[in-house]
């Protein structure tokens, strides 16, 4: 905060020097534009900071998702889940920073800056929730965890605003459309999980997943084109994922009756390779 102010004043000095050359520093128009300059710069700075935080959120969420994919072939799942939970806690701290930046602002004014990060977070958190509970996390549940208690002291903004009585409550609301887009991304992860669990000889998970995916797919078809534009784009990918999962279940069902269980894994190892290369093209 302090550093930024320093930059601003040095820039102003530069402008003042330039103006003396042109000799028009007293003009009301120029004076007005100086105010505009400050206002615009403050806005742009805030936007850039939000973009940066959003990028960090994206990276950390992606890492969590990768970690969660290991669940399928690690004996001790609880440990992995705990680690993921820990990582997500870190992500939540970052979202807290976003909420901090947006305090007193119109959330929609800067929405474009942080929407990718939030979507990725929704994806990660709902993936974890699915692995734990085999159900879809609701928007309320996500939002309930994005409540921050800010103690004064370490927080420069709170102390600048005056003596805050105790802790301040700060909330961040994920918008319904961000939630929707995050869930749409989740289906891609579930498809991957399905394929890899087949590869591990897990017979039950694929069927559960296909059912769950079908529910989500029905939900998206129900929403149809009332949603934002991006939803319809993601619906296409969703359909592809669903197709792959259904194919896998079909194959399991057909071949499951004729191949002994211990050999199924071998059948599907070749199949996964095929599907993965398929996905790489798409």
């Amino acid at each position, binding site marked *: 905060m302090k550093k930024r102010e320093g930059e601003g004043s040095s820039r102003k000095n530069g*402008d003042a020097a330039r103006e003396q050359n*042109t000799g*028009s520093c007293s*003009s*009301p*128009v*120029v004076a*007005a*534009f*100086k105010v*505009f*300059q400050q*206002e*615009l*710069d403050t*806005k*742009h700075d805030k936007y850039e900071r939000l973009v940066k935080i959003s990028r960090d959120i994206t990276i950390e969420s992606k890492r969590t998702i990768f970690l969660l994919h290991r669940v399928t072939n690690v004996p001790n799942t609880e440990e992995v889940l705990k680690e993921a939970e820990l990582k997500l806690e870190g992500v939540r701290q970052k979202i807290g920073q976003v909420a901090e930046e947006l305090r*007193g602002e*119109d*959330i*929609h*004014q800067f*929405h474009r800056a942080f929407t990718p990060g939030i979507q990725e977070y929704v994806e990660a958190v709902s993936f974890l929730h699915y692995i734990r509970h085999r*159900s*879809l996390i*609701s*928007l309320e549940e996500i939002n309930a965890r994005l409540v921050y208690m800010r103690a004064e002291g370490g927080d420069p903004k709170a102390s600048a605003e005056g003596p805050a009585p105790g802790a301040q409550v700060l909330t961040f609301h994920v918008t*319904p*459309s961000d*939630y*929707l887009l995050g869930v749409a991304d989740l289906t891609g992860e579930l498809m991957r999980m399905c394929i890899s669990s087949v590869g591990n000889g897990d017979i039950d998970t694929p069927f559960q997943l296909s059912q*769950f995916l079908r*529910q*989500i797919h*029905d*939900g*998206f078809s*129900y*929403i149809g084109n*009332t*949603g934002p534009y991006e939803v319809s784009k993601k619906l296409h990918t969703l359909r592809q994922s669903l197709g792959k999962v259904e194919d896998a279940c079909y194959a399991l069902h057909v071949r499951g009756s004729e191949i002994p269980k211990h050999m199924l894994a071998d059948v599907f190892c070749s199949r996964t390779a095929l599907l993965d290369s398929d996905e790489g093209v798409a």
Partner: protein
Amino acid sequence: MSVTEMFSHIQGFLSADQDIREEIRKVVQGLEQTAREILTLLQSVHQPSGFKEIPSKCAKARDLFCTVKTQIGDLKTKFPVEQYYRFHEHWRFVLQRLTFLAAFVVYLESENLVTREEVAQILGIEVVREKGFHLDIEDYLAGVLIMASELSRLAVNSVTAGDYNRPLRISNFINELDSGFRLLNLKNDPLRKRYDGLKYDVKKIEEVVYDLSIRGLAKESESSGDK
């Protein structure tokens, strides 16, 4: 909560959102209509006969701005005020047009640059976001840039109409505007694109001023050598 319940919950939210947008669109259409009327009215200043009627035209335009005020008042009731930026795109364009029209009227009357407060007052809105429906700074600046290109046209036409002093005054004004905009650190956004057009307006007016001074038609020659 089951998946189906979750989705119907979201669907409810989305359709409510669409209803609001529909309402806003209707009001904005009315606003665009009024803005066009004002523009038509003000366009007549470009005609030779129109130069004498500038004050009366401005008065008429001011009357029409009263309609704008009530329409914007209507628009304000269509959505929660703290969600201004959620629906901003719907009225961004028309608000820029209206800013331009207000700025043009004020210029014709007093030859001054309209302040953001004045525009807000003419349109019956606020300047700061906290107080309600407000004029976004970028929209204001965009409106001012539209006016700049209108003024470059006016400079040409005022010469045709035999008014040789006006171009000089416009030239001074635009130069001032240009140096104002140079103070801004614009990002690569629509406003910046529009600003890039300002130099052509400046150039055009300078050419007009040059033509006048080389023929000795400009009486106030001291103001042309400003920049």
